[in-house]
């Protein structure tokens, strides 16, 4: 079996994790730019981070037969200071041109503040200006429903964003329908305590279908599981789902969305 983990923060993981993921069938990962657990002290810190994402990490992954792609942005947790955020945005275009950069992400909201929303809208505009795919982070826990609504309203208000080129991530039972009904792609994140379990993800697939939806681990520096995608495959298999359905959720769907970048390439 082959699978893609389309949202995982491998800079926070060990090389052993690449090895275990490869053994479990992982052939490609995509890594959104995110918050490192602390605020960078200067915009230049993001320049170094984007360099790591586009140069070092693809090489580390390839040693285990895994293709590594990334997304470039300033994440919502560090977007409260618009001056700082705009300085980071000023050098994003040069990284978006790199061969493994698939688009702008993971942009979005964290605490649903005015400044977060302003910087989100400006990064959507940057993505539109550069014809980029967009990967969106929705807020955590009690902030998710409101944030998802604000994000969808902001995207729709522009009138020029193709929802088929936007993935809204970290959906749960109360937001998945909002996302899919507007034509966007939806990501389900398999993350202990604060997001989805493999069982609940399988429930959502059984309830809402398999169109425009993928699963990911969002493995990072917190308690998380880089093997969450193959574990969800096993959960679906145990429930009697057909192999074609399991492959669609964990390989074909991410492949279809990501290939729109013109850069993502993985052997089927």
């Amino acid at each position, binding site marked *: 079996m082959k699978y893609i983990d389309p949202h995982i923060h491998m800079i926070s993981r060990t090389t052993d994790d690449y090895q275990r993921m490869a053994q479990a069938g992982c052939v490609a990962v995509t890594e959104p730019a995110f918050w490192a657990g602390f605020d960078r002290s200067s915009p230049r810190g993001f320049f170094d981070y984007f360099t790591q994402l586009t140069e070092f990490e693809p090489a580390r992954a390839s040693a285990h037969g895994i293709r590594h792609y990334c997304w470039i942005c300033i994440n919502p947790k560090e977007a409260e200071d618009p001056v700082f955020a705009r300085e980071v945005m000023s050098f994003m275009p040069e990284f978006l041109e790199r061969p493994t950069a698939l688009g702008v992400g993971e942009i979005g909201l964290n605490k649903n503040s005015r400044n977060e929303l302003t910087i989100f809208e400006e990064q959507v505009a940057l993505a539109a200006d550069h014809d980029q795919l967009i990967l969106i982070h929705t807020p955590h*826990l*009690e902030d998710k429903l409101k944030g998802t609504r604000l994000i969808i309203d902001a995207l729709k208000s522009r009138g020029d964003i193709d929802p088929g080129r936007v993935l809204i991530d970290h959906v749960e039972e109360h937001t998945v329908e909002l996302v899919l009904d507007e034509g966007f792609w939806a990501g389900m994140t398999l993350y202990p305590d604060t997001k989805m379990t493999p069982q609940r993800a399988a429930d959502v697939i059984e309830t809402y279908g398999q169109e425009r939806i993928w699963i990911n681990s969002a493995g990072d520096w917190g308690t998380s599981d880089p093997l969450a995608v193959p574990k969800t495959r096993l959960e679906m298999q145990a429930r009697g789902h057909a192999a074609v359905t399991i492959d669609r959720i964990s390989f074909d769907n991410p492949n279809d969305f990501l290939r729109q970048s013109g850069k993502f390439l993985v052997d089927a």
Partner: protein
Amino acid sequence: MSRQAVVDRYFMEHRAKLLDVAAFLDRVERGGAEGDDFRMAAFRRAVAVLAEPGASRARRILELLSDPTDTPIDSAAGLKGAFGAYPGGETPA
């Protein structure tokens, strides 16, 4: 999966989770008689949803725990994490 197959596969796992919830509530009680904070008040409302009829319990609980407002907050300065339940207009320290 059939109803019976779901019960056969998941009953023991969720029996254990149910006991975890019960033990957690007992633990909170042992901690003292002070009033619940906003998280526990929301938790108790969510537990009540489990006994309600109809489907979509997970969705209803998530909605119950969500911020019901629809306008951005003025500033996120000093705020990073979430609490798991909506504080109701107050931002906990």
